[in-house]
């Protein structure tokens, strides 16, 4: 019963608290503790959500960086290699078949090809051909352009040459090619 010194009476200290007030105080403390626990749980939940969001944002950022790196790598490829690749692709698409069909068509007459040279960009053609007469050569030059890669033909030079069985005309022909014609 004695909690302190005997005859310890101080009128400034508050009077004994009624049990009802103590009960109210206890209820208030319990409510405060419950509220604090709820707040802590909510805070933890919020913190978990924030953590998940941060993780997702980090993953998204990593994905963006990887995509950017891939784009950068593609843009940064060797130009020479790219040019070679383009050249290979163009080589595969060149209309060789159409060119030879155009050179050997029936309508071009009795002219024999001795040499044929085409530049690497498939833009010009030089050939050495022989025929019995200059007229055959001229008809050939005029009939050659048409449906095919040969766009224009020019007789560059010609000469007469003795051959077994008679004299033949040897001509040098230059043609301009249009590679896109048969693609």
């Amino acid at each position, binding site marked *: *019963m004695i909690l302190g010194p005997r*005859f310890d009476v101080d009128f400034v200290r508050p009077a004994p608290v009624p049990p009802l007030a103590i009960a109210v105080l206890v209820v208030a403390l319990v409510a405060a503790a419950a509220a604090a626990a709820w707040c802590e749980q909510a805070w933890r939940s919020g913190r978990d959500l924030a953590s998940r969001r941060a993780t997702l944002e980090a993953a998204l950022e990593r994905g963006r960086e990887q995509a950017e790196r891939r784009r950068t790598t593609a843009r940064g490829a060797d130009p020479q290699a790219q040019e070679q690749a383009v050249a290979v692709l163009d080589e595969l698409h060149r209309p060789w078949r159409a060119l030879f069909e155009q050179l050997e068509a029936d309508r071009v007459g009795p002219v024999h090809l001795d040499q044929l040279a085409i530049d690497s960009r498939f833009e010009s053609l030089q050939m050495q051909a022989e025929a019995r007469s200059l007229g055959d050569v001229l008809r050939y030059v005029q009939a050659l352009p048409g449906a095919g890669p040969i766009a224009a033909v020019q007789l560059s030079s010609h000469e007469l040459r003795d051959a077994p069985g008679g004299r033949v005309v040897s001509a040098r022909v230059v043609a301009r090619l249009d590679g896109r014609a048969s693609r």
Partner: protein
Amino acid sequence: MRRPDGWPGRAAAAWLLQVDDRRLELRAADGRVVERDDVDGSAAIGPAAGRMLAAHPDGEVQVRVDAGVARLFLVPWADALTSGARWHTYACSRFEQAYGESADEWTVRVVDELPPRARLAVALPTAWLKAVTLGGARRVVSVRVGLLDRVARLLASEPRFSGCAIEVGASVATLLVFVQGELRRVRARRFDAAEELAATVRSEWASFGIAASAVGAAVALPAAARAALGDTLAAALGATRVVELEPLSP
């Protein structure tokens, strides 16, 4: 401001205001009386205390009340009273029985005590208490009955003290009769001479069937009357031991 031992974190009061039913004394921390004021009736104590403390605005104030201002009475132990609030209600009821007036205008405190000992109840007029504390402008940190503080110190050194603790006030003497450390009786007596007071003390001792030579007396006296009244009272009590209670200090 000095701090007393055993009170860490709480500053000691700078002032001690000692109050009886006719006089106020304001003492500094070193014990010297800084101001004294005689009042006419208890109603004038509050305003006088307010004026006195307003003149010394710094520091906390402890108020020590003479037992003659308060009303002290015993409340018999009752096992059925299991809470402080019930004890307070019981003490107010005993107050009305003892003094024939309502306790509504009194502030009553009940002292803790070991069962089955009777518990001491102390009452101060509520209006007086408010006047003193509000007059101190919230600087009053305690209002205590000086006699009880002195008795508490005595019992701390002599737990089984048998005798009578007497506070001789301006007009009233308050007697607390102890038997083997237990407070058995509380009396307030007006007196005209020391012999009259000594006779009252001997009568109280006799009522308990205790020989006068077996008990002691603890006496607290007003400073002005200390020399003359103390010697007279000691002589009137015969062969008993007279212990002077410690003076109050802030």
